């Protein structure tokens, strides 16, 4: 039985949320490639049905495979980052203990929908990833992640011309929806945009270490209107009650 003699150092915990296919795993691979020689890193993935993300990252060869671990979410990826963060939190603690000291643990949410954001009980900072292929109007549709995550990523800007999206306008509208909180237009083919992302992460790490950063909660699902004309909001408890046991 393992006995811990000292408490491992606490790493900064960075959440990466956003719909499936917007490029979360790819972005994490970019971060590992750019930062793993400067920072001691580990990655936790929350795949829905497979360990696909963990395997992708391991095969990308950007980080020691031991430092990439999948967590099962019981088909409830949103629960695992918000209503009940236990499994992820234990995985973070295990990483911190096994690779002590770590600077940064990145947690990829199992892509779910526009409303899933991380609880401040799990992460210190979070970014929310959209892509231009999802359409220029997604940023205007809003939601807690888009509006209030620490950083919004508009990914795959290289695809703009192919999907008739005005990338600059999308970034501008994102900034407006976020009342000035940062937005980065990112593409893996655009080195300057990767530098910008890396600089943001390093800056956040500095702020976090100096104790100046307070983890924010982008908030639960926004109030919304149903076809019958009623408007309501979901409190976390009632939302999960409606979704069934453990959902």
């Amino acid at each position, binding site marked *: 039985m393992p006995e811990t003699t000292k408490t491992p150092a606490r790493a900064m915990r960075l959440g990466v949320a956003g719909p499936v296919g917007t490029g979360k795993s790819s972005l994490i691979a970019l971060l590992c490639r750019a930062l793993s020689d400067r920072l001691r890193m580990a990655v936790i993935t929350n795949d829905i049905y497979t360990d696909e993300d963990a395997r992708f990252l391991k095969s990308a060869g950007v980080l020691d495979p031991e430092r990439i671990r999948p967590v099962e979410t019981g088909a409830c990826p949103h629960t695992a980052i918000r209503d*009940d*963060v*236990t499994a992820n939190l234990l995985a973070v603690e295990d990483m911190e203990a096994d690779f002590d000291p770590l600077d940064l643990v990145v947690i990829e949410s199992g892509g779910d929908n526009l409303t899933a954001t991380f609880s401040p009980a799990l992460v210190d900072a979070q970014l929310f990833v959209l892509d231009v292929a999802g359409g220029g109007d997604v940023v205007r549709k809003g939601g807690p992640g888009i509006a209030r995550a620490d950083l919004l990523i508009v990914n795959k800007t290289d695809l703009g011309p192919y999907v008739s999206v005005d990338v600059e306008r999308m970034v501008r509208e994102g900034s407006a929806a976020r009342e000035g909180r940062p937005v980065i237009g990112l593409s893996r083919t655009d080195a300057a945009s990767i530098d910008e992302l890396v600089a943001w992460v390093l800056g956040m790490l500095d702020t976090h270490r100096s104790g100046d950063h307070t983890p924010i909660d982008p908030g639960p699902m926004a109030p919304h209107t149903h076809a019958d004309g009623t408007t309501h909001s979901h409190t976390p408890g009632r939302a999960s009650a409606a979704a*069934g046991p453990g959902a």
Partner: protein
Amino acid sequence: MSTSSLLLALLGDARLPSGGHTQSAGLEPALRAGTTPAEVPAYLRARLRTVTRVEAGTAVVARAVAAEGGDLDAVEAAWAARTPSPALRANGRRLGRGYLRVLQTLWPGPTDDRARHWARPVVLGLLAHRADLCPVDLARLVGYDDAQTVTAALLKLEPGDPLQATAWVRDLLPDIDRMARQLAPLRTPDEIPSGGAPLIERWAQTHDTTTERLFSA
């Protein structure tokens, strides 16, 4: 005034943030090994007579030992001796850490350093002692939680009517209650039941190395 029955509701609620949604109580590997959804009621009863009885008995004994300021490591060892699958032991200890977070946040108090390595029923016993959940309710909690874990996981794994799954749990309530009343008087580690379910243990081992899975165990 005793709040034990409300505590039972609080702790038995699927919304308790202790990591329960990652569990299928062995159902995912059981289905993979050929168990059919129609056999789930039998699966539930088989667990209740074997592995769940061990869990519930361990929790009751841990509560009694904690109440007397005894050594919970001895209870943990008795549980481990009755849980042959290393995967199930590792999973039980992970769940124990989840309940330890609940305990330390909701009922804080001085806790042994070794508690981080205790299995779920041991931590639950300690929690029950601190929160004043009575022994029979504690055993009911373990039996009820196991049945709900299986049926909630079934809905994620196979098509089916959620109310049918709930009916199966309802049908099991008298059995859970009987088990709880039998186990409630237990006091010492050697009294913990030792029934085993070799197939459940073996499936758990297979599941541990399966990559495409919804649930941890």
